[in-house]
């Protein structure tokens, strides 16, 4: 159904500034400019799922910065990092009566939080209080106001850097141990 909807809605996609996916393994140094960049190390590259026709060229990036804090880091009550996620997506088509919404969810998708609806520039900003999480961009009917779950298809997805954390079992000196013993 979503594919059909997208096909019906598709006109020529509005060209937006391209945002290259971040190479998370590349060495990134701060540049000499008046404004420093958010930490590239923790940036989340958003990749298209190609579930909806016309969205396969979409690229995106979610940049993490700590919420403003007098301390250098901002923490939630339980000690988790409290960060602001700035989502930017390019090359999304316009689809009648629909809009794109950014969400954060835990890896097990048992908790979901709405980051915000992408604006006409494909951008939105919102807080995240989890250590490991996924970012998804979904296609929703205009005015969809649900705060804790999405209804439409996932258009792009990405994982926080912390989601890469893996058991040492099966790696390096612990190669003989099976990582599945530790839940992986």
């Amino acid at each position, binding site marked *: 159904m979503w594919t059909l909807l997208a096909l019906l809605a598709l006109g020529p996609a509005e060209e937006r500034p391209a945002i290259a996916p971040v190479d998370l393994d590349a060495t990134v140094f701060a540049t000499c400019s008046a404004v420093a960049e958010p930490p590239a190390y923790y940036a989340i590259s958003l990749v298209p799922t190609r579930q909806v026709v016309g969205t396969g060229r979409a690229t995106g990036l979610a940049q993490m910065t700590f919420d403003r804090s007098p301390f250098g880091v901002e923490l939630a*009550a339980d000690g988790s990092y409290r960060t602001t996620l700035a989502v930017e997506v390019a090359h999304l088509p316009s689809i009648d009566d629909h809009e794109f919404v950014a969400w954060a969810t835990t890896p097990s998708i048992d908790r979901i939080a709405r980051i915000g609806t992408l604006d006409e520039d494909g951008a939105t900003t919102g807080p995240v209080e989890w250590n490991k999480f996924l970012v998804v961009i979904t296609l929703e009917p205009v005015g969809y106001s649900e705060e804790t779950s999405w209804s439409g298809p996932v258009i792009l997805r990405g994982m926080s850097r912390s989601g890469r954390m893996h058991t040492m079992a099966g*790696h390096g000196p612990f190669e003989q141990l099976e990582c599945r013993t530790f839940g992986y």
Partner: protein
Amino acid sequence: MPNFRILRSGGAFLLVLGTLLPSPVVAQQHDQHADHDMHMGHDMDHETELEGGWLMPPMDPNMPMMPGLEGAVPPVSAWLPHFDLDPEDFPRAEPSRAVRLADGDTLDLLVSPVRRTILGQEYLMYGYNNQYPGPFIQAERGSTVMVRVRNEIRFPTTVHWHGIRLDYRFDGVPGLTQPPIEPGEVFTYEVKVPDAGMFWYHPHVREDIQQDLGLYGNLVVLPEEPADGAPYHREELLALDDLLMTEGGQLIPYGLESPVNALMGRYGTVMLVNGVADHELDVQRGEVVRFHLTNVANARPFNVRFGEMDVKLVGSDIGPFERESWVGSVPISPAERYAVDVQFPEAGRVAITNTIQAVDHFRGVFYPHVDTLAIVNVRAEGVEPDLSELHSTLHVNEHVVQEIDPFREHFDREPDHEITTMVRVRDLPQAIVLSMEADTFYVPPVEWNDAMPMMNWLSSGNQVTWILEDEATGGRNEEIHWTFQQGDVVKIRVFNQPQDFHPMQHPIHIHGQRFLVVSRDGVPQENLAWKDTALLPVGSTMDLLVEMSNPGEWMIHCHIAEHLSAGMHFHFTVEPAAAEADTP
């Protein structure tokens, strides 16, 4: 720790020295992994002495022994004070006492071994004037006090007056501002105190040993006039520290020729507040207490919570913030200070905790962890006067705003200097190098716990070099030398390079000057206080606006003691302004 009270009375401050009451001993320490239900169990014996007198640091029981490291010990000599000395030859240390110094007064400060009792066990440690922490020195702004230091420990030492813009000749940096004070020698510091605030003092020689064994104390500089902001009933010091021990309570030795734990710094397993593991204080219901937090630990950052309460953040290293604000917790890295006002509205017990999301690198998971640092017993009896209404109001400190105003024009300009932090290693055991493959899948912005104590412990300062690199010249650590003129306002951008062997957060300390953290990761900071130390998380960039007000030779370094010993420092010169230079 004696209570000192700065009470507002008719617009004036009265200093009242409280009496010291012994605190009841209660078992309140959390085991390092008490909240971490992941124990598989391993059979490593951490209480038996290894080759050379080493003891292995406690490890998470779910962590299997790293193949190839069975029986391994650090490649330096193990050392603890009782290896050389008979503890019975030294006095038992006493809690800190306050000493008020007038302009021109002299304090004799003895640096010597002392016996300390922690959780019922006795240890031979170090102390200033046989006290833990060292004497709480109180001086008035603008005064100069003399501190005559006699060194009676086996190591050379100095005293660094952290955060104080004093004459650089008394800044306590060996080889830069003075020769080290050799055992048996005396050196007299002239400590001029131009800024009001809560400062501290500690050695600047092998801090990883000397400071960790108890050589630290606070120095408060009292303003001539009452500060802005809400009143409070009393003030309390909280010096936050930790000690690395086996589960049986044996101190883990230090590296004699070079520090061990050079990768992360020495994270302790027993939390101390004001030198004890069972700190308690009594307050009356409704009392507003101003807590002055100082992180005196070698490496550990704390995230301090006061029960479930929001607390009012009022000040940092060198005085108040522009605006008071409510915060849920106080993240504080080594050498930083924060002041918070806390009201205790209900009778009962309130735990002051270190509340963190720890990382288990072996499992690849975060887990919540809480250490109880201290207990506040709130009596049912209500306090007078009732300050609830004033406490609930957030105040603007106009004098701080006005003092910062002339610097705002510099906030957005290009940085004058850029530094990148990084680390290089050599000759580490192959098992450690291999394990980093998995350890660096993810590096947290701040390491709140030591998730890999064995790996950390086996790394010495001979194998690890922590680096500050000047982006303009490529110079590293002491290859860097900057020169400024007194009165310069200098913007320094510091970037914590995350793509490295084992990147870590760094508390960056600048000697002898004060600075503002004007932005982090390109986001302007909105509520400022003058600082001398600031936390730089992994991957982050911070812009420091430094007022080069104080001529002399000064150091910039990471305040993780083991990182400093592993090279992470350089110095700069501030040449005196012309008029001052001409003064004979």
